[in-house]
């Protein structure tokens, strides 16, 4: 039991890490990774939704009729997204403004629906939570990594919390503005994917 738990948890961190191994849910990845801070915020919000929707869906997996299952999953996911939205609006208002419409758009993030359909609908609640946590953590790490690359090259800083940079390049550093603009997101993700392929060749 403990072994399979660990397996489901760790697969999200490398073997099936989104969005590199599972090329799903690209929109938030490209849009919010202008800085590490935004990336982590988005990742944590998605993880919360993933864990709780996985839990509820796996508890209800024998109750939900298979013909209308997708609609049921979407309603469950949308409920948790609304919770995240309201909580973020109340406690982390600045981040809420920065992420904008990408918070309600977690509903249509294919990763969440994908895990519900591929995993939570077939497995027990404990395993499903482990799966959600693993995939969510992997997603957060990917977002933070891409955010770090883009923020470092495009702005010369690394920010983890509340706009206070933990690291700043000297005044002589010429920021590579391209990286925090739209094209930099595509190119940055494409090259990181290439790097992952180089390291982890099957």
């Amino acid at each position: 039991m403990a072994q399979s738990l660990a397996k489901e948890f760790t697969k999200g961190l490398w073997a099936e890490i989104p969005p590199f191994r599972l090329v799903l849910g690209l929109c938030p990845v490209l849009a919010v990774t202008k800085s590490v801070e935004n990336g982590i915020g988005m990742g944590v919000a998605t993880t919360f939704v993933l864990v709780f929707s996985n839990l509820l869906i796996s508890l209800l997996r024998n109750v939900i009729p298979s013909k209308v299952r997708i609609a049921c999953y979407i309603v469950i996911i949308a409920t948790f997204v609304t919770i995240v939205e309201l909580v973020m609006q109340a406690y982390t208002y600045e981040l809420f403004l920065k992420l904008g419409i990408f918070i309600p758009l977690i509903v249509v993030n294919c990763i969440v629906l994908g895990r519900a359909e591929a995993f939570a609908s077939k497995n027990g609640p404990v395993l499903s939570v482990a799966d959600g946590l693993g995939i969510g953590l992997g997603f957060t790490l990917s977002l933070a990594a891409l955010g770090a690359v883009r923020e470092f090259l495009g702005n010369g800083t690394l920010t983890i919390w509340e706009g206070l940079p933990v690291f700043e390049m000297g005044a002589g550093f010429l920021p590579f503005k391209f990286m925090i603009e739209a094209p930099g997101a595509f190119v940055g993700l494409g090259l990181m994917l290439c790097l992952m392929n180089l390291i982890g060749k099957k």
Partner: protein
Amino acid sequence: MGDLFVLAISCIFINNILLAQFLGNCPFLGTSKKMETAVGMAMAVVFVLVLAGLITWVLDIYLLKAFNLEYLRTVSFILVIASLVQFVEMFLKKSIPGLYAGLGIFLPLITTNCAVMGVCLINIKEEYTFVEAAVSSFAYAVGFGLALILFAGVRERINLARVPKPLQDTSIGLVTAGIIALTFMSFKGMV
């Protein structure tokens, strides 16, 4: 009238939904390997996006805002879009089989296309009037189709090129998309 034209141009080119706002990227990469699928997806999106944009606008103004139910926006929008897609699918199957055969498999995919939900939310956030919402929905959808078809054209040529192994498939696709996004950036400052 002039304002609406400016709005349309800015939605198609400057704030292109795929390349500047990053919405709908999963179908962008998924259906752009062949020109045919790209055209099918683009048409399906235009069709559904305009309908969804108008219906969610009416829903938001006359139901959610009127009864102070804004917190139900996410849930109700996704339900409307999902059922709209189902309904459109059934309607086309029965009355316009030719169009259904063309759009067929792309329709159900649109439910999880965040471009649709995204544009509906943008329409509300920018507080557009009904006509503006209609124009912006249509223009965003046209921008989606334009970028998707351009990208599919480029990708068909890439298939003929010799790409280094680690860069193959999605990786080179993303880098190409980045270069196309760069060209779209030059539209900035046009309006």
